[in-house]
């Protein structure tokens, strides 16, 4: 009889943790997806800045506006408790994000501003995009410095 109780409790705990893992895995996927969209569009803009891709105002604007699009996603629901490096595999999100949420959101706002600046710069040619890329790089690494685990 006791054994049964243990088995049921164990199964419930197992299910519970599986359910929990499934819950945060959606958020983690969404977080990583938005970063990949940012990287793909920075690939276009960075290619233009480096002179590897010929400048074209429309292409540049589409890429920059995609960055702005990502900047409009509400980050709140994506960074749920229990989805940091201490709790789950497959993330580089440091616990510092939850220990210092205001600092983290401040850094995100720097990305929002850099994306808006990129959208302004996109129509103004290679040099303007190059300068905006440096500010964008600054916002990326200042957040990754504090809140993302190194490889």
């Amino acid at each position, binding site marked *: 009889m006791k054994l049964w109780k243990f088995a049921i409790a164990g199964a419930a705990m197992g299910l519970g943790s599986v359910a929990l893992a499934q819950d945060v895995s959606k958020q983690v996927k969404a977080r990583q997806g938005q970063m990949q969209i*940012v*990287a*793909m569009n*920075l*690939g276009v803009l*960075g290619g233009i800045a*480096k002179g590897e891709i010929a400048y074209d105002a429309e292409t540049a604007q589409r890429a920059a506006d995609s960055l702005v699009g990502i900047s409009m996603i509400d980050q709140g629901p994506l960074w749920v408790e229990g989805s940091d490096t201490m709790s789950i595999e497959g993330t580089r999100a440091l616990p510092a994000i939850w220990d210092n949420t205001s600092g983290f959101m401040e850094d995100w706002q720097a990305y929002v501003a850099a994306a808006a600046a990129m959208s302004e710069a996109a129509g103004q040619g290679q040099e303007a995009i190059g300068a905006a*890329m*440096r500010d*964008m*790089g*600054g916002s*990326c*690494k*200042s957040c*990754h*410095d504090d809140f*993302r*685990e*190194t*490889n």
Partner: protein
Amino acid sequence: MRRILSIVGLAVLVAAGFLFWLSRPQPLPADAMAGLEGDAEHGRQVYLAAGCRSCHTAPESEDKDLLAGGQRFPSDFGTFLAPNISPHPEAGIGDWSLDQFASAVMRGVSPENRHYYPAFPYAAYARMDRQDVADLWAYWQTLPQSDQASAPHEVGFPFSIRRGLGLWKAMFVDPDWVMAGDLSPEEERGRYLAEALAHCGECHTPRGALGNLDTARWMAGAPDPSGKGQIPALTPDKLDWSAGDIAYYLESGFTPDYDSAGGHMVAVIDNFAELSPEDRTAVAAYVKALSEPAGE
């Protein structure tokens, strides 16, 4: 028998005396910096390339040039705490002479004639041009002062005996270049920046049992000293970025996949972003000239 014992005793004494002599602090010769006038403007470039502020600003400091110290550097031998090296005359190093500064930077010897721990990368700075040291010291006088007291290192016995560091220096500090052979002027400039100033090898090269850099596996990547993660290899067997990719990474922090730098490399890129495009290209040329590491 007694004679044999006394011979052995004498030999032990001689050996001990030799080691004691070998471990002595060796500041620069008294006339090493004679006649050198510092150029503060160029000193700023040396300061950025040498990465002084990357380790010596306070953690979370807003002013990146306020060298108040306090960052912690864990290692197998204890935890080192970066001291205040701002030009404050009491709390910092403002009352030093150029000779004292040069001996600290290039020889790892303090004005009190004691060894510094090699967490301070004097093994790299030993390769510096003395003119650059003079320029750096001229620039130093323009930096803001902090009255923050330096915290002691957390290092246990036997590593707390600083005299022993003299033996470490005798074994492992070599002012010759690691990358030998015929180099283009650009690669030579890159080598100077990477091996003497930016001390890339301190993190990117694996270490031996005594904390010495394994020069046979130069820039072959190493465990992150923080204990988590890995510092990437820069050698051609691992890093396939183009020279342009490397230079752009040092300017913007973007990898060729438009991921961004993180960790301590962020501070390095903050410095390199302010250097000239030629210097970034030179470092890229140096990285592309690295050899594959010797076998494990």
